[in-house]
């Protein structure tokens, strides 16, 4: 069936960008009203900042989900009316566990790095867990995630075992990429994680291609169940890169099932977002291309989750892409090599007070979804998972020499024909990894 580009030349009126603590929604497409001046971004010097959002998470006006049933009744706990709950107890515990896994894992990475178990560039995700958990926990296994170099936690959220990620970081043969990728190149075919990219922006076209595949399967190959969505995660620095804009255009043009998730942590190494960007409000760039643009508090996993739900549903229906800007913050430096001297300590303190894990913990306890004991036991469980991951990685073998040439080509005939007339991959030195290519 042929699809014509003219079908979607007109951008349909897009839903208004939602800010999740906005009480009313404007019906004016492409415009967005929000509280206060556009100074919601922290600034390095003058202390314009948002008041700390209320700890009780406000529900966006249209988001009263009747399906959020509470199962605590069966546990014999008295709970308040379930209509206001954004999550069930199970969901809450799942989210908590995922964020704890992400946080503890990254802390363990730092430890291991300073002990000389891993090398090179390691970029940690502390502080941004709400974005990864909020989005990825809504996905099916067949949905695709594309990330950047700050990809450990995306891999973990997507389901890649902690053991596989840790041993990849240690450079062992049991790593998810056989030790060949490293910190910045996490891949998993089983879990549909297609990177892990070291250059910023270069994963966005790949994500667009994965979304294109999904649309192709549905429309050309007529696979009715092909409604897989793709999430592309990237940062504020990437939003000044050409590939971002080119892909926004193509995704909106062809209504690809993709969600562009901007993890705006305000800093690209030492470059403040405000110093690099003419218009720092990234969500606005979505409507400019004819797609929904949303800004959300990325330190609040429940808000992120609500926004993610809508964006994912939109993509799955075939209604096209969404650009979601998550205001978030990294508690550590850009990488373990970054002295992190440029950021204002007051800014750091402000965001530390908004730690997404503490916020969820508080929410769950206040709303009687869980008690301290249960949450502590989750933390203990994760500690054990990580100790096991480190032990496993320590004991795993390093890649042998024979692995050197194995994955250069999917079809090793690509190494060509040698002087003796045989394909070079037939040479025993190839299986030993000692041939020179």
């Amino acid at each position, binding site marked *: 069936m042929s699809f014509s580009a003219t079908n979607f030349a007109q951008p349909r009126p897009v839903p208004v960008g939602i800010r999740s603590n906005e009480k009313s929604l404007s019906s004016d497409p492409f415009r967005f009203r929000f509280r206060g001046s556009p100074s919601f971004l922290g600034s390095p010097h003058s202390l314009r900042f948002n008041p700390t959002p209320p700890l009780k998470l406000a529900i966006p006006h249209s988001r009263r989900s009747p399906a959020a049933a509470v199962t605590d009744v069966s546990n014999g706990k008295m709970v308040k009316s379930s209509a206001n709950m954004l999550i069930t107890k199970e969901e809450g515990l799942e989210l908590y566990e995922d964020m704890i896994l992400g946080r503890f894992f990254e802390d363990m990475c730092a430890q291991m790095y300073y002990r000389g178990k891993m090398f090179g560039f390691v970029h940690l995700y502390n502080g941004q867990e709400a974005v990864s958990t909020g989005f990825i926990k809504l996905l099916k296994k067949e949905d695709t995630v594309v990330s950047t170099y700050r990809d450990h936690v995306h891999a973990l959220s997507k389901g890649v075992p902690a053991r596989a990620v840790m041993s990849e970081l240690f450079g062992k043969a049991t790593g998810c990429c056989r030790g060949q990728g490293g910190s910045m190149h996490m891949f998993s075919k089983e879990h549909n994680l297609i990177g892990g990219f070291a250059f910023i922006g270069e994963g966005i076209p790949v*994500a667009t291609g*994965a979304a294109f595949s999904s649309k192709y399967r549905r429309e050309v190959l007529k696979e009715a169940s092909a409604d897989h969505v793709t999430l592309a995660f990237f940062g504020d620095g990437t939003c000044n890169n050409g590939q971002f804009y080119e892909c926004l255009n193509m995704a909106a043009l062809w209504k690809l099932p993709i969600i562009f998730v901007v993890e705006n942590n305000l800093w690209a190494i030492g470059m403040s977002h405000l110093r690099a960007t003419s218009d720092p409000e990234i969500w606005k760039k979505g409507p400019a291309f004819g797609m929904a643009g949303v800004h959300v508090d990325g330190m609040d996993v429940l808000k992120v989750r609500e926004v993610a739900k809508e964006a994912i549903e939109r993509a799955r229906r075939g209604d096209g892409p969404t650009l979601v800007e998550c205001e978030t913050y990294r508690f550590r430096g850009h990488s373990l090599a970054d002295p992190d001297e440029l950021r204002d300590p007051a800014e750091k303190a402000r965001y530390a007070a908004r730690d997404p894990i503490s916020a969820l913990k508080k929410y769950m306890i206040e709303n009687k979804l869980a008690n301290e004991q249960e949450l502590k036991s989750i933390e203990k469980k994760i500690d054990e998972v990580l100790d096991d991951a480190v032990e496993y990685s320590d004991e795993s073998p390093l890649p042998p020499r024979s692995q050197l040439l194995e994955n250069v080509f999917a079809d090793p005939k690509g190494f060509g024909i040698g002087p003796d007339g045989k394909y070079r991959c037939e040479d025993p030195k190839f299986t030993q990894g000692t041939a020179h290519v």
Partner: protein
Amino acid sequence: MATLFQGLPSSTAFSSSNKFNHVPAPTSFSERKSSIVTVRSDARWSPVLNYATHKPQRLITNAVATKADSSLASTSSKPGHELLLFEALREGLEEEMERDPCVCVMGEDVGHYGGSYKVTKGLATKFGDLRVLDTPIAENSFTGMGIGAAMTGLRPIIEGMNMGFLLLAFNQISNNCGMLHYTSGGQFKIPVVIRGPGGVGRQLGAEHSQRLESYFQSIPGIQMVACSTPYNAKGLMKAAIRSENPVILFEHVLLYNLKDRIPDEEYVLSLEEAEMVRPGEHVTILTYSRMRYHVMQAAKTLVNKGYDPEVIDIRSLKPFDLHTIGKSVKKTHRVLIVEECMRTGGIGASLTAAITENFNDDLDAPIVCLSSQDVPTPYAGTLEEWTVVQPAQIVTAVEQLCQ
């Protein structure tokens, strides 16, 4: 496959008389039969073992053997059909798209416009706008999109309207196309074909006359092939699409209108093999793409002067077919490389190094490499002519080499 290739002694493959003013026919019928039979100049053939991928190139043997009296005689009674090189490319593309619904094309103006050189003409009407996708002008991104689609199960062919435009896609080609199979530990394969017209045309100006093979050749994980005749264009196109590796197929702007006869039966050529154009004794001339025709023109003059050059179209720019090349070097002991690539760091430079490394003892003279000059291709016709290797230079070089 067991059919013997009969009676084509080397000297009849190319007589000096009338073959050089138009496209030379493939050197032997055995090439048409099988991608895995290489022709040696002494007219014996030897099979190269076909290491089957899960898409074996099996059809060739059956195709010829459909008739009960399968032999060369029957092949010659099926003369095939005549077409131009761009039509041969289209035929190959169309056949592969019919065969596998995951094969798709993307690029600028490939759909409704039919391709700037008409290689995809009519395909969008036949297969739909999603399978023959007109992209916006964003090479880096749509190349990356093709790579992402390949990683998730499709087999895209990415067309650069001019090869030079792919410089904008260098990030994606180098980092993602070449490397992702490795950095993912073998989990994802990237079966893309990146193709487009390149080379020096007729006064197209510097930026439209680029030869990117020299820039791409260092990227690990990709293969590069260059087609030069309708026959090998179709065969290489099909082979590239079926390959699990990323392949860059270099076409030449001036060769699209070459006319030749190609077999009716389906055939696929080997991506890694070189093509023997004219067997000879005195000197090995290695070339590819358009320079093949300059070489054959020079060969005509050379034969008249009493030389017997052996001409090989290397076809596979990365990796080199060291077997065909090596056998030739061992026979003639003299090598001349004629290419349109730039002098510095070009294919010729790599080939010189490879031959010196592997066959130094067989050489009686240093390798001579004739390349284009390291000059941005000028617009003026006379200047443009002088940057590119001309037949007269080839003749002089052979004469000097054979002294």
